């Protein structure tokens, strides 16, 4: 039982990291129909930013420095994302295949650039030691960092929810996910919403990169790609364009992966893919996705 609790919370923590990547993917696809394969590169950029800040700029190992590095990595991810949208994707609107290809290319170029700048070996990050403490729940011991991932993802989920529910741009995004053409036919420049969605998606991914660095104890050139695959699976299971669906799916994917991997060595990834297949066969629109029209 103790092991189960430890593993379960670790799985939710991993799901929280998936959510940070997947929320942006989901909104970008839902609103624009763009499968953004460069999203992992945003995460990696955020991860390197966090590593650089906490090892080169403020290497005091304090919680304050760590907190600043989180915000910084979010901004790095956001800037990278907005630049991608403005310089590449914007010029290919409604050419979905071309857009996907461009993001695949960018993802590959980014990995080689990281390789060139930082080398192939993972760079070791030194997060504040407090994050490696454990708390006791019943008889189980759980790393504090897990709760940090869950809290940050929870805050991002809440911020997304409030933005979508109560702001004008949120209204435009919700409507645009349903019917983009009709949004423009009401006199709204929906492309501004595209840029905004890239900004928040990139911010969450960058933030996820900083946290993933803590989770994986370091950052290498392909850190983002590892997360991107599971984030894509999360988005598909949750339903493209649905943030609540993405959140639920992230928890399912994270816990399944961790639990199965523990009880049946190495089978976790396979079971996640199986889960994806089952959802696609029985509910192609995903858990909370809308039927395309």
């Amino acid at each position, binding site marked *: 039982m103790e092991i189960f609790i430890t593993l379960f919370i670790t799985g939710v923590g991993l799901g929280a990291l998936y959510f940070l990547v997947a929320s942006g993917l989901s909104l970008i696809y839902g609103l624009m129909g763009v499968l953004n394969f460069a999203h992992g590169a945003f995460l990696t950029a955020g991860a390197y930013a966090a590593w650089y800040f906490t090892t080169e700029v403020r290497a005091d190992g304090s919680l304050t420095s760590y907190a600043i590095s989180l915000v910084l990595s979010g901004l790095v991810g956001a800037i990278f994302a907005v630049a991608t949208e403005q310089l590449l994707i914007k010029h290919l609107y409604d050419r979905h295949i071309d857009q996907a290809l461009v993001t695949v290319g960018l993802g590959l170029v980014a990995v080689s650039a990281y390789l060139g700048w930082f080398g192939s070996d993972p760079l070791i990050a030194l997060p504040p030691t407090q994050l490696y403490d454990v708390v006791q729940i019943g008889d189980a011991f759980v790393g504090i960092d897990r709760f940090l991932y869950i809290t940050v993802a929870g805050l991002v989920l809440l911020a997304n929810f409030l933005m979508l529910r109560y702001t004008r741009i949120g209204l435009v995004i919700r*409507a645009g996910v349903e019917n983009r053409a009709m949004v423009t*036919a009401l006199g709204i420049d929906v492309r501004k919403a595209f840029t905004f969605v890239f900004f928040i998606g990139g911010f969450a991914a960058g933030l996820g990169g900083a946290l993933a660095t803590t989770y994986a104890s370091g950052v290498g050139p392909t850190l983002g790609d590892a997360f991107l695959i599971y984030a894509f699976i999360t988005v598909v299971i949750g339903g493209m364009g649905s943030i609540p669906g993405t959140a639920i799916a992230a928890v399912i994917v994270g816990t399944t992966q961790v639990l199965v991997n523990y009880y049946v060595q190495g089978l976790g990834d396979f079971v996640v893919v199986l889960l994806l297949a089952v959802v696609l066969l029985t509910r192609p629109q995903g858990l909370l996705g*809308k039927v395309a029209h």
Partner: protein
Amino acid sequence: MTNALTLTDVNVTIKGSHILQGVNFEIEAGVVTGLLGRNGVGKSTTLRSIVGLVPRVGSINLFGEEISGLRTHEVIRAGVAFVPEDREIFASLTVAENLKLAERDKNPDYDTVHQLFPELLQRKNQRAGTLSGGQQQMVAVARALLNKTRLLLVDEPTKGLAPKLVTEVAAALEIAAQATTILLVEQNLPLVKRVAKNIIVMDQGVVVHNGTPAELADADFAKRMLGVSGGSH
């Protein structure tokens, strides 16, 4: 007589099929013009080309301003409102959110909307996807009435509606007509006769006739132009 809208040699090709093959017409300002024709002749495509929802070539002139190069939201902001054929309300948004999204003016005219469709006020927190077809049409029309417009494009607003609702939608159009110019695609000929001053008839991607609703009383004309027998149905 000033023109609100002039289309000159407008062509639309979608995925290789040449749908509008040089559409030419003028619309008199301040009145309702009916756009008629059999199914599939290009009426909806004509409206969609005006607002830039389909790629178009040719000249589209709105009160002296060339708008054929504008993007859809810019055409709308130039003073055009569009009520599409299949309503295209946002099903996952509430009625109030659907209307809010359509707000452009500083003081959107909710008075008129609520006077015409009091039901929308009662149902403001209902998801638009759960409204009846008629209520959805009210939302689609209401969206277009919230802002001051110079040209209102309405595509078959009474399609599939019960007679009482047809009357309500007609009333809404008549009120709107007092303040703006309307181009109305409509299969309900008695309604066209009642509200329109001019009619344009299309066939196979071109305009084949320009005239008055009075001609619709002529059974031979209606049969020849529209493929319907008699002036009403």
